[in-house]
């Protein structure tokens, strides 16, 4: 990296690039801590209601689409791998690789959303959406409706995060196309990567809690 390029991307409040990178990562990790608690409220509600009616939660969980949920887990884990490779490409200044890996990550995010849409459609037709049209023919319909309320709230909030992630990846791909990450300025890609991996981790917990609460 040339001296001029390094000065160009170094903000004036930092001594050197290393300090600037550390500050960027620290800021992102603090933001992710707030995200953990943002989702944490829903995880807490889930824990309390499952503790209060474990049988109804197990029965309701058997009505979710475990094949689609499991496939979506694999899709997200794969997309996280591509994202990690995208960060690596950005570190090494390999622009072509970076663009393709970002687009592939965004594409897998879209596939995830497509599968989710398919699932939501099935839930709608099977009257599993809480509200006036909710129908439950097994024991304890109130608790089952609570399960599905949490199912939609948790997967819905997660889906919003995936959509934000897809937009992020597409914007980063355009930036990479315009050579914005030249000269060692790869931090935006690393920061976006942290976000994407976090969204992946949330799903890693949602999958067993929502789809496998009752053994099949």
């Amino acid at each position, binding site marked *: 990296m040339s001296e001029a390029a390094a000065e160009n991307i170094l903000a004036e409040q930092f001594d050197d690039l290393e300090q600037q990178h550390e500050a960027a990562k620290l800021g992102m990790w603090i933001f992710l801590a707030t995200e953990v608690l943002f989702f944490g409220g829903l995880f807490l509600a889930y824990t309390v209601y499952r503790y209060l009616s474990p049988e109804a939660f197990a029965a309701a969980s058997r009505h979710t689409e475990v094949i689609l949920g499991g496939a979506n887990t694999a899709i997200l*884990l794969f997309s996280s791998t591509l994202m990690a490779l995208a960060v690596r490409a950005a570190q090494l200044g390999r622009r072509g690789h970076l663009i393709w890996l970002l687009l592939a990550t965004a594409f897998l995010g879209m596939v995830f959303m497509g599968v989710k849409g398919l699932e939501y459609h099935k839930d709608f037709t099977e009257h599993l959406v809480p509200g006036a049209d909710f129908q439950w023919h097994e024991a304890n319909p109130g608790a089952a409706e609570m399960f599905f309320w949490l199912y939609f709230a948790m997967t819905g909030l997660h889906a919003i995060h995936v959509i934000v992630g897809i937009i992020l990846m597409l914007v980063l791909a355009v930036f990479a196309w315009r050579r914005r990450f030249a000269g060692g300025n790869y931090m935006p890609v690393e920061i976006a990567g942290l976000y994407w991996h976090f969204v992946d981790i949330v799903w890693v917990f949602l999958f067993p809690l929502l789809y496998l609460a009752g053994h099949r």
Partner: protein
Amino acid sequence: MTTKVLAPRVYWTNFLWLMGLLALTWGLGYVNFGVFNLPIALFISFAKTILIVLFFMHIKGSSRLLHLAAMTGLLWLFLMLLLTLTDYYSRGWVSVPR
């Protein structure tokens, strides 16, 4: 600290481990261990999280400050769950005069 460039092999190995753990979670969903299904499933989820955080999120090889920041979210979440659940668990143990 500037993030070290890792070999692609590290990421692909991590991916294979994660897929293996996913298969384990999935398989577990079809076996009845009674009350142990949930703890085992959560244990596997935590194992996946550790792999993602260490390798994909580059916590391995990063500074102490980032290690600390990464732990804060989990710590607060744990406190929130613990304190709320002690309340729900102990409700009705004693009758409180009004």
